[in-house]
């Protein structure tokens, strides 16, 4: 995909979670991310897509490649109209990784990206935005 384009994918099944991973991988490769950087952003996408499906009841992902003088980044936005997250701090806490937590996958995803915001209201849906910057992607003259 070219820069400045936003791709929108529906997240309504586990096959679509896999589809989201694939789309993010392709964008990361095209944007010049290193292998480890690709792996991190694709894994984060997988976590967030699953959260959208399992806890949000389904929704969509928007994918954009961003570029400025600071370099290149991939921005992912996951939106659902689900029940929302009552306690965002708890959802991000480490209780998740031992399996005792809500299992929302948010804490892990947050550690893989550089910018991470959650906008959620109980009963009002959830929007999660994650941005991963690349240290290796070179700015290419258009």
């Amino acid at each position, binding site marked *: 995909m070219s820069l400045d384009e936003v791709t929108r994918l529906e997240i309504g099944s586990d*096959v679509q979670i896999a589809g989201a991973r694939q789309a993010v991988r392709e964008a990361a490769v095209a944007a010049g991310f290193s292998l*480890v950087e690709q792996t*991190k952003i694709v*894994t984060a996408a*997988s976590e967030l897509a699953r959260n959208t499906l399992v806890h949000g009841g389904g929704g969509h992902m928007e994918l954009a490649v961003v570029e400025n003088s600071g370099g290149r980044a991939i921005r992912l936005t996951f939106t659902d109209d689900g029940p929302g997250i009552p306690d965002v701090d708890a959802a991000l806490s480490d209780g*998740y*990784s031992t399996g005792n937590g809500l299992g929302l*996958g948010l804490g892990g995803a947050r550690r893989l990206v550089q910018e991470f915001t959650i906008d959620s209201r109980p009963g009002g849906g959830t929007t999660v935005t994650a941005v991963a910057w690349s240290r290796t992607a070179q700015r290419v003259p258009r």
Partner: protein
Amino acid sequence: MTADAGAGRVSVLRMGEILIAAIQQELTDESALALQSDLTEMAAAGARGVVIEISGVEIVDSFLARVLSEIAAATNMLAGRTVVAGMRPSVAITLVEMGLSLRGLETARSLEDAMALFQGQAGR
């Protein structure tokens, strides 16, 4: 016997009392769960160990990590061992970055090394 659900197809081979599942490609959640169910069933039917070979896997997220841990827990209960072999560097880095160290999961560099573990050598 194969675990085939949706996009992913994982062949499970049996070598003596060891089950070997080589995951060749990315799995959907459904196929991961199918693999878990099949391996657990086969282990209960009489296998002493399971090797899950993941050198072909580029992404291991928390879901797949949990499935792997659960397979290991199940085989342990059935008096066996599960070894995850061939994890890629980028996958290992991403898992520890997420805070998932999967302690308690045995690992090996390759299928060959994993099989050696079952041949009487001391486990790690």
